[in-house]
């Protein structure tokens, strides 16, 4: 292999390294105006009046749109579910608040100002009169009878109810020797990419064309949503995603702000730019992770996990974000783990409260599922006097069982989960660590070992069609185009976005490998709906498992065409020729004859009369991959083991990482360095989420951690060295054997860290069930039981 499996230096990097890559805030258009949002200072209030008199008199303001106008000109914001939902109540939401605000920072009006500095100055000239209402921030309180209802058209504050059951749950619990019942919670935090949201909208009133530049992961879906919401024909909407400075799922959001900015552009007929401030971002973008999971695990005394029941609550915030069902489902059903359970049931609810709406964040709730079952495994092991690793060994799905449809409908494809577990334990020196732990405990030092093992989904078979209707099963797919030009350079055009995960390099590696050409001859372009086929975007870890196979197939198609034309031009039949990358060779009776790729390309574009009848001119192909038609969540199933060794300082509550080990198998790896960087970065993100980052609200629904001073994204000092070891089991159902892995590394660390901390201190008489594992929280746990002296 010339390129597959090689850590090629990324093609994107020289532009990034020299400050020559274009992000949304780098784009300026003639006549461009700057948008600013008037946002609610209250978490819950009625809007009595929006007074724009002073604002309208200000020459720095070119246009204002309030909720009333927005509601009259747009459809409500969409909501979808990822699986069959028992009921999907739809709180009505327009892009600007109309009669009520339901979270601090909710947009009430938008203005377009002449320049960036004036936009900041004039926001306060829109005067809004509010009548504050009672604030609900706790989802369990929001469920109590008599709690103030956030939406009049709903029966309660339940926004969504989803149920999923598989196998024999009753039987599993009947057979159990005991039932472990636990409650876990993860706190609210978010992805916070270093680049906030941004959009530029430009509307041509006469051609009725809307052009949108947006830091989005989903250019095509964004266009479709805008078409629906703004009631513009979709073919008139052109969406361009420049380089995205980090997405992490947040830039999947179909933001109300995007609609509002487009409305401004349509009203004024001039380009309007909005770049989000960090404080807006922390308050009013999408929040994530805040969930409560109550689990019951049916267990036999020999450590067999028979089944489980999960009750999952997502604190959905003031409205249903269009993707909130995904993490709700992920958090619940992933509590099956990579284990051979007989029965499983999940009852999931999205509860509405006066917090920022809860949306997509890398990992999509799966981290809660992993944490839940893996924490239970450790607890079950303790109860039975077994080593937690033995409980895992006993219950893991084994290679001979693969492909395996588990009790909740996940169809694991390939791999060796027990081997990955053993590798992690071996690399860690597990037995020595246990001895070290015993030795240090005698000295009053507390180290802990925590492990999580899980099978993740790479590519999701849900919500991929442009306007996915609930209750219809769909499959993930990717279509893309390849073009070899007359000089034999190749362009691959994909309708997803560049968010930093090395698509331009990885896809070029696949194309170059397949076509046996130099990688410098391959260019990958992304992000532009006008020059790409529909693609559901950079999301759901689908690039490697769904888009790359399409690219590979597209390259194969192109190669076939080159061979076919080359053969025809040589006078040979296509079965008799060989393609070597720079020529097509025919071992004829008269000896070797060949035609260069350059000559083939020239013929294809400039000597059409020499082409066989019926053959298209040019050298273009299409690549298309559809996920296997299996009723299951994921397209491919990467898996990892994370093992954390920590020391807990019981006097200060600080956690120190002694080691952090990852064993990863994401199928055939195209660029190992890119994969490894993803794994380390995702793990770092989870360390941040487990210990440092917290979106804290007070009783009035005010966000107390509303700046980067208080919202603690970790620096280089907080992140330990992470050791990554690889296994590689190609995915049999995927051309190329690739498995998606963008999110996978983001779901293990929470569980590994909580298990490690629990392993360090639970023997002191505490129970570790809640995140964040911040120093004050750990000290709170220990306060009750610490002995003096």
């Amino acid at each position: 292999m010339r390129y597959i499996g090689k850590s090629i230096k990324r093609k994107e990097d020289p532009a990034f390294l020299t400050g020559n890559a274009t992000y949304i805030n780098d784009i300026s258009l003639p006549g461009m105006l700057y948008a600013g949002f008037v946002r609610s200072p209250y978490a819950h209030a009625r809007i009595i009046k929006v007074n724009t008199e002073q604002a309208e008199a200000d020459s720095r303001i070119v246009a204002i749109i309030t909720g009333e106008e927005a509601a009259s000109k747009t459809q409500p914001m969409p909501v979808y579910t990822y699986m069959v939902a028992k009921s999907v109540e739809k709180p009505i939401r327009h892009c600007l608040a109309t009669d009520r605000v339901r979270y601090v920072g909710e947009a009430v009006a938008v203005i377009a100002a002449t320049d960036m500095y004036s936009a900041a100055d004039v926001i306060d000239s829109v005067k809004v009169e509010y009548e504050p209402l009672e604030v609900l921030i706790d989802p369990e309180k929001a469920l109590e009878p008599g709690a103030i209802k956030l939406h009049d058209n709903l029966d309660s504050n339940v926004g969504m109810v989803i149920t999923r059951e598989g196998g024999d749950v009753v039987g599993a619990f009947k057979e159990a020797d005991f039932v472990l019942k636990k409650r876990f919670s993860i706190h609210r935090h978010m992805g916070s990419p270093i680049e906030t949201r941004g959009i530029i909208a430009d509307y041509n009133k006469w051609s009725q064309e809307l052009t949108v530049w947006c830091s989005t992961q989903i250019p095509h879906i964004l266009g479709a949503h805008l078409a629906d919401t703004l009631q513009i024909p979709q073919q008139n909407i052109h969406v361009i995603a420049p380089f995205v400075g980090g997405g992490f799922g947040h830039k999947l959001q179909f933001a109300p702000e995007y609609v509002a900015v487009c409305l401004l552009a349509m009203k004024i007929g001039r380009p309007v730019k909005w770049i989000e401030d960090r404080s807006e971002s922390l308050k009013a973008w999408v929040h994530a992770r805040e969930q409560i999971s109550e689990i019951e695990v049916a267990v036999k005394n020999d450590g067999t996990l028979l089944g489980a029941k999960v009750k999952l609550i997502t604190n959905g915030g003031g409205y249903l974000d269009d993707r909130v069902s995904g993490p709700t489902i992920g958090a619940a059903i992933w509590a099956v783990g990579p284990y051979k359970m007989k029965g499983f049931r999940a009852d999931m609810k999205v509860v509405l409260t006066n917090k920022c709406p809860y949306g997509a964040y890398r990992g999509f709730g799966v981290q809660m599922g992993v944490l839940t079952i893996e924490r239970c495994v450790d607890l079950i092991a303790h109860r039975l006097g077994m080593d937690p690793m033995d409980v895992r060994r006993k219950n893991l799905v084994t290679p001979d069982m693969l492909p395996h449809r588990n009790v909740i409908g996940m169809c694991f494809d390939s791999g060796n989960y027990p081997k990955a577990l053993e590798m992690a334990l071996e690399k860690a020196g597990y037995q020595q660590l246990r001895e070290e732990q015993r030795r240090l405990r005698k000295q009053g030092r507390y180290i802990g070992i925590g492990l999580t093992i899980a099978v993740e989904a790479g590519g999701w078979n849900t919500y991929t069609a442009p306007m996915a209707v609930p209750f219809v099963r769909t499959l993930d797919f990717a279509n893309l185009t390849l073009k070899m030009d007359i000089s034999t350079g190749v362009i691959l055009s994909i309708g997803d976005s560049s968010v930093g995960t090395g698509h331009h390099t990885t896809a070029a590696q696949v194309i170059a490998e397949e076509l046996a050409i130099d990688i410098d001859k391959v260019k990958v372009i992304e992000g532009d709906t006008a020059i790409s086929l529909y693609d559901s975007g950079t999301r759901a870890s689908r690039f490697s498992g769904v888009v790359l196979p399409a690219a590979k197939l597209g390259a194969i198609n192109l190669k076939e065409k080159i061979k076919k034309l080359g053969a025809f031009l040589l006078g040979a039949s296509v079965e008799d020729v060989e393609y070597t990358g720079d020529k097509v060779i025919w071992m004829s009776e008269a000896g070797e004859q060949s035609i260069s790729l350059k000559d083939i390309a020239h013929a294809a574009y400039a000597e059409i009369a020499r082409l066989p009848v019926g053959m298209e001119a040019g050298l273009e192909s299409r690549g298309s991959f559809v996920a296997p038609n299996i009723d299951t969540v994921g397209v491919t199933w990467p898996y990892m083991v994370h093992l954390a060794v920590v020391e807990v300082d019981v006097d200060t509550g600080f956690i120190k990482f002694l080691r952090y080990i990852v064993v990863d198998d994401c199928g055939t790896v195209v660029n190992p360095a890119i994969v490894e960087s993803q794994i380390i970065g995702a793990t770092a993100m989870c360390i941040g989420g487990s210990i440092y980052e917290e979106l804290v609200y007070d009783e009035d629904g005010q966000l107390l951690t509303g700046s980067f001073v208080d919202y603690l994204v970790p620096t280089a000092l907080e992140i330990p060295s992470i050791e990554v070891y690889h296994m590689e089991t190609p995915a049999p159902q995927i051309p190329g054997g690739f498995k998606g892995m963008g999110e996978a590394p983001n779901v293990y660390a929470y569980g590994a860290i909580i298990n490690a901390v629990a392993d360090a201190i639970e023997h002191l008489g505490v129970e570790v069930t809640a995140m964040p594992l911040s120093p004050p929280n750990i000290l709170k746990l220990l306060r009750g039981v610490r002995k003096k002296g």
Partner: protein
Amino acid sequence: MMKRTIRLTVNGKQYVEEVEPRMLLVHLLRERLGLKGTHIGCEDTICGACTILMNGNAIKSCTILALRADGANITTIEGVAAEGKLHPVQEAFWEEHALECGYCTPGMVISAIQLLKRNPNPTEDDVRHGLEGNLCRCTGYQNIVKAVLSAAKKLNKRTKSD
């Protein structure tokens, strides 16, 4: 609010600009001078995406008035690669896969350049401390640290052979 005229050198080129007092240096660089490589990631002086060199010191250009650049010698990321050839720090970042989305990268490179100028033989701990003012959300810092240590070797080799 009186505007003032300032004179500054950026990446070796001299500029004369009229600015209002509240204009932040990062906006002068980006919007007025068209140097978009310096990025904005927060308004709290925490993320460091806006880091540039002013009179040889790495500073956060979002937290300084443009007026303070009067008479200053500024290097932004666009001025780091000399004559179209990558600086050893940039080379090392590329080789060690020390970037993903690239948004924090200009600030990181500038901070790394200052770090290595002040401490040509840093330990890993020194590097992590030196990059404390630059947040990255994508890479988890590991390859960035590797890149800075690699750049140190490159620069030391270069000095030795001079």
